[in-house]
């Protein structure tokens, strides 16, 4: 049998105890240290100087934590942030963009970016909102001018336009987008009505493609100076019929614009045809086999484009004409 080791001496036991105490002290030291830290030293949760997130600066969203202090851009620097699309915003009446990133609490890799645009008025906000509309459902409770895609949420509210984009189509982030949008809508000053601008309601409802009303801020249909045009789609065959209208300073301006547009079509290869009598001042053009009708009506200039037959063009034009004659110019 192997000889047995002697029982531990008193010195051994005391040393053992001292070691355990030392370990406990190390553990305490480590625990103390872990609580003292500055998140700014990782570059997260801290601002770079010059950050100005405007209404987003104080925005708290349940379930999200800010990953940065945010930034803002003015018309001169907008293209730094969104580059290719800047023109669209500038033309519509852009004033300032506020951006800030948030991440799901405890998961900095799951982040979303809020881009809140201050436009000059609700019309301008509606213009950028409508021009970029992608197919997607309207989240309940966020008003008519809101929709969500698989990883983003867009809404127009008064003069504000919000784009909230998540880093991935992840369920937690989608919830975060929704929460962020609600928090923003609740926080924004309600100084201007959030409703869709009035002209949008003038399109004949029958056959109108839902969500197709768009406000083209500038150079509509490729014609320089044709600004602030509302368009709406009436799908029936291909190409789709488009009705459009715009309000001008008075009947004279409307008449001048209708004439200018007809001339523009002509220089682009259009062929003038005899216009229907039913609509006063109307001009009819054919280009590549599709028809365009444009007419002034009070302070409005209106038109129908894209139909392959004169009949289909006139049918929609008559309905729009009727709606316009119902409103006071």
């Amino acid at each position, binding site marked *: 049998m192997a000889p047995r080791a002697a029982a531990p001496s008193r010195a051994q036991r005391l040393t053992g105890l001292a070691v355990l105490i030392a370990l406990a002290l190390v553990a305490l030291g480590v625990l103390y240290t872990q609580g003292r830290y500055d998140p700014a030293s990782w*570059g997260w949760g801290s601002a*770079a100087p010059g950050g100005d997130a405007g209404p987003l600066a104080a925005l708290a969203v349940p379930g999200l934590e800010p990953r940065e202090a945010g930034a803002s851009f003015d018309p001169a620097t907008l293209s730094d942030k969104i580059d290719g699309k800047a023109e669209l915003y500038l033309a519509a009446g852009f004033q300032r963009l506020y951006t800030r990133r948030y991440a799901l609490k405890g998961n900095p890799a799951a982040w979303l970016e809020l881009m809140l645009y201050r436009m000059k008025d609700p019309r301008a906000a509606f213009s950028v909102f409508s021009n970029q509309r992608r197919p997607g459902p309207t989240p309940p409770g966020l008003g008519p001018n809101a929709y969500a895609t698989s990883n983003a949420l867009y809404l127009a509210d008064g003069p504000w336009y919000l784009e909230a984009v998540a880093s991935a189509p992840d369920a937690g982030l989608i919830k975060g987008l929704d929460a962020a949008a609600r928090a923003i809508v609740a926080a924004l000053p309600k100084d201007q009505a959030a409703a869709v601008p009035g002209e949008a309601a003038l399109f004949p409802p029958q056959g109108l493609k839902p969500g197709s009303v768009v406000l083209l801020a500038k150079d509509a249909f490729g014609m320089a100076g044709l600004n602030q045009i509302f368009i709406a789609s009436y799908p029936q065959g291909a190409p789709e019929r488009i009705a459009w209208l715009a309000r001008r300073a008075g009947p004279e301006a409307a008449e001048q614009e209708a004439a200018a547009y007809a001339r523009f079509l002509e220089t682009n290869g259009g062929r003038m045809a005899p216009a229907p009598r039913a609509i006063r001042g109307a001009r009819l053009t054919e280009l590549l086999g599709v028809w365009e009708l444009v007419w002034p009506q009070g302070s409005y200039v209106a038109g129908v484009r894209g139909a392959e037959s004169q009949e289909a063009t006139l049918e929609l034009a008559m309905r729009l004409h009727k709606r316009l004659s119902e409103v006071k110019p």
Partner: protein
Amino acid sequence: MKITTARRISQAFFLALFLWFCVVATVGERLWQLRGWPVNWFLELDPLTGLTTLIAGGSLYSGLLWGAATLALTLLLGRFFCGWVCPFGAMHHFIGWLGNHSKDPKERARRNAPHPAQQIKYFLLAFFLGAAASDLAARLLLGQGAAFAAGAIAIALVLAATRKGQGRDFYFIAVGVLLALWAVWSMAAPRGGASLLAGLLDPIPLASRSVNLALLPLADMPLRIAWPEPRFYQGAAMIGAIFLAFLLLNLWRPRFFCRYVCPTGALFGLLARFSLYKVGKREARCGGCMDCEALCEGACRPAGRLRPQECVLCLNCLSECPESAITYRPKPSAAGEVAPDLSRRRVLAGLGVGLAAPPLLGLGGLLGPNWDPRLIRPPGSLPEGEFLRRCLRCGQCMRVCPTGVLQPAGPSFGLEALWTPVLNNTIGTSGCQPRCVACSHICPSAAIRPISLAEKLGQGEYAAQGPIRLGTAFVDRGRCLPWAMDRPCIVCQENCPVSPKAIFTRVAYQTVISGLSAGEAGGGELAVSGRALRPGALATGDYYLVAGEVRARIRANTNAALSLEPGPGWHTPTPGSPVAVQVRLQRPYVDPARCIGCGICQHECPVSGKRAIRVSAENATREPRHSLLLKGAGPH
């Protein structure tokens, strides 16, 4: 409680703490994330990291002062770090026990017998110190006396540790000649000559690197605690295999790494020889059961004349001796001690090879004309020469990087850069995040110096110097879709995060289908003939029909007709006239004055193998001589 029980508790505690630090090195504020956990503490406790960075870099980064405390305690207690603290040692100890505890005591005693190969670690220590010190004379020349003194101490340590005896004169002549040669060489070729190779085998950097880059990614695959997505590290297999090999070798010889390889253990050994407290025998004679030899972790022959420099203070002998003949006290062993079994020649050779290694490696020209543009270093990195003198290769930066863009350099970058961090913009979840400076704050040796976000972005007080550039992106026109293949793509431009963007595009129209003739127009369409078109293929909005000088955007197409959106000046072509289809391309260009080399464009490029836009280290801020631009030159 037995003293060995206390030792096991201590080992388990420090091993668990070490692994915990590896797990929590994730940027975030939750309890299992970085917060304020002192995740570098083990690296700082390791005196070799401090000593070599001090010698090679000429300054000691504050945290590394912990190493001095470890050395002081070693002088008092012996190699307590190896037996009680070192997490890598604990792993060896445990696996060695697994492989050997069931063996017959004689066999165990045989495996634990001292072996001449234990000298190898001293050779390695000398080599690493030499490699770190070979630039010292140049530093002296530059007036950095403190660093020189540290180098002299390092050499003195090696000399003091080697055996006194025969051949003394020859020995001193050899050392003198070597030092003289080294001094002359250093003065003739000042700076750039040192290399911190110690991290290759220094146990704490080795264990950190292996756990961070191999073990943790593997373990985290199903768990997703450390990273939200699976983490990949290039060359992780080699790092993991070396780690595993060292662990498995314990089955053959317990504490294989500690006995034969560990340069830090060798450093401790040199001091432990003179430590105040030592393991030893109360009397020269004992019962001769040899139990102690069967249990001795350090292979230091406790039953005979002890080798204090090899003793890792496992204290198995003390605890298990049936005669209580073993003591731990401030007295040498009654049975006598054996000085380190060091061959002067070998240690000198180690030192000499070490001194010669950096200039030899330098012949590759990595720090000169043959600099490697693939070595894109993290933001805040020192210039390459300094970086190599400081980087421990511990993998902490690569572990903490939230995107995984930081990767260990593989062997193709040369031994001097092996396992140091480089950006690989392909492998992670993104390039280097503009608003992140995590790596610079975790780096234990300031090879990546701590930078603020304002400095990285070039804001506030750094506005004049501009943002930190890691390199510059270059478009590979032979692979870029709009350049080489007439396919529209502006992914890189869209993703470039700098403001104003560093990538701009120039529009070009390229004919992609020619030989068409116009037919009749109708229904918004123009019939074409001469070639059948693929229905819908031209409906992306990027294609135009060109007739003479004017273009109309193609909205849709069938095999013989195009739906068009005419632009100003358009006139419908007469039937029979020639028309062609053009694609509108936005071809990317990089503005080197704006590009920060973050690599986000490279990461997002849809040419997913060898990307069509790639960053290389040209124009990186840290190396002004690699600048692409003359100051003030250029159109913007």
